[in-house]
């Protein structure tokens, strides 16, 4: 265990908490285990079981603090944040990812994705400025990259990136058939591939190698792969969603919140029945979460989730496994 690396993570947590409190966000401490959690396509929970005499019930480890925070918001809370351990099943490990990680998530009332991008940038810049790097064995190059970056991070649109680097109008590829045809033309295997996989395969092969190493926000995500995000008013095929990318690594994901209880319920029920067929891990419907959305339906909120371990690993120049103190992890470059 590299003590300097795990101290980097502790310090990111402390500093983040201080910054968010100073900005007026109230901390809530979420539970890690629940009897039901929200189901989203491509996010898979770890399932455990609560065994008692003659009784056995499924319990689910949190995949994000989102449901807990939204319940607090629905209970009348104001701007709020949580820093919690989350767990993602059916994903590999690597320098930037482990199945367990710390996620900071915060929500702001009367806000939207544009305002949330500004808040996110402020938080990360303040954090990097305040961070007193313990001297790790590696250079803290990303810290300097962030500090030396323009103070106004650029915004890159998926639609424009596809137009420029792929030569295709992404908005015309929103159906399964159109995306399949395009992918076949690229020589990609389409059998058994989802729309999202082909979209990502295109991004990884044709766009990502050309993206800058400096911090930027990716915007104009297809609405069909952004389930809990509001659609854009003037282009409903796109979501009011952004990702923060630094040094080629996704650090945060935020959006204007979709509180359409009926639509979210429909999406979750569809995904649950799909997983029951394939035998993939899945929770039952999270009624409390859906009720919370119902109560919030007339309000405007925006939120963002930030990968705390990734940010700490980036600043300290080590892997996520190292800031977690779990060795060097698998699949490292």
């Amino acid at each position, binding site marked *: 265990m590299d003590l300097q690396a795990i101290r980097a993570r502790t310090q990111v947590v402390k500093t983040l908490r201080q910054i968010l409190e100073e900005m007026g966000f109230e901390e809530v401490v979420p539970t890690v285990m629940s009897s039901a959690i929200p189901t*989203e*396509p*491509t*996010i*898979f929970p770890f399932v455990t079981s609560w065994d008692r005499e003659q009784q056995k019930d499924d319990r689910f480890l949190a995949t994000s603090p989102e449901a807990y925070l939204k319940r607090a918001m629905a209970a009348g809370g104001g701007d709020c944040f949580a820093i919690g351990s989350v767990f*993602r099943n*059916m*994903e*590999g*490990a*690597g320098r930037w*990812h482990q199945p367990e990680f710390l996620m900071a998530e915060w929500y702001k009332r009367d806000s939207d994705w544009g305002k949330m991008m500004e808040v996110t940038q402020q938080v990360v810049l303040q954090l990097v400025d305040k961070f007193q790097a313990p001297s790790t064995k590696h250079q803290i190059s990303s810290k300097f990259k962030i500090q030396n970056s323009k103070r106004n991070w650029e915004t890159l649109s998926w639609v424009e990136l596809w137009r420029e680097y792929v030569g295709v109008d992404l908005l015309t590829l929103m159906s399964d058939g159109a995306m399949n045809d395009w992918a076949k033309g690229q*020589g*990609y*295997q389409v059998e*058994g*591939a*989802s729309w*999202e*996989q082909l979209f*990502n*395969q295109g*991004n*990884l*092969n044709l766009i*990502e*190698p050309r993206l800058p190493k400096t911090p930027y926000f990716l915007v104009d995500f297809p609405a069909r*792969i952004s389930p809990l995000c509001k659609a854009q008013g003037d282009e409903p095929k796109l979501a009011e969603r952004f990702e923060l990318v630094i040094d080629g690594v*996704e650090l945060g994901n935020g959006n204007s919140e979709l509180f359409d209880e009926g639509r979210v319920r429909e999406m979750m029920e569809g995904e649950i029945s799909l997983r029951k067929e394939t035998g993939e891990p899945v929770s039952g419907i999270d009624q409390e979460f859906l009720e919370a959305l119902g109560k919030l339906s007339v309000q405007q909120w925006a939120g963002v989730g930030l990968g705390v371990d990734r940010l700490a690993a980036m600043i300290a120049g080590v892997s996520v496994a190292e800031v977690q103190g779990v060795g060097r992890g698998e*699949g490292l*470059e």
Partner: protein
Amino acid sequence: MSTVKGGNITKNSYIIYKGAPHRVTAANFTSPGKGSAFMRCKLKNVVTGNVAEFTFKSNESVEEADVTKMELQFLYADTAEVVFMDERTYNQVSVPRDLVEDKLGFLTPETRVNVLFYNDNPIGVLLPPNVVLKVTEAHEAVAGNRVNAPKKPVTLETGIEVQVPLFIKTGDHVSVDTDSGEYLARVN
């Protein structure tokens, strides 16, 4: 035809990419969207040597290339072919010279290399990471040349030239990196 899942592609394995056999020189797992995972690969065409990068979906089937290796001894090179021998059976294998031209400078008789076969045809050789070669021509170091460039060129028994430290003399044996062509150490 055997296949491998994209997520299980490993470094140094051989796959078919765009219809041609490629060696995987790097394979890194990545999951950009939640749950949708990919394998980012660096590939080297084993026939042309051209390099490419491609990202496979972790659940797609990728055709494995039937590339096999056989450890053989280098015998000689003529203008068209380079000839190797199986030490156990004395069978000889000829590889077209243009496929191994860049490697001849590291081959001395009896050097053991891995000859690569694709669909049973020899397509190239894999050299050991380093080889020991004799210095056949080395000039005395020039005084005054020691401060900024304490290296000098020498010629080795195969005819290639490498930069070595000034203390190397004719008749010495030196270890050379077969990938970069750089001097590694003097060998006694």
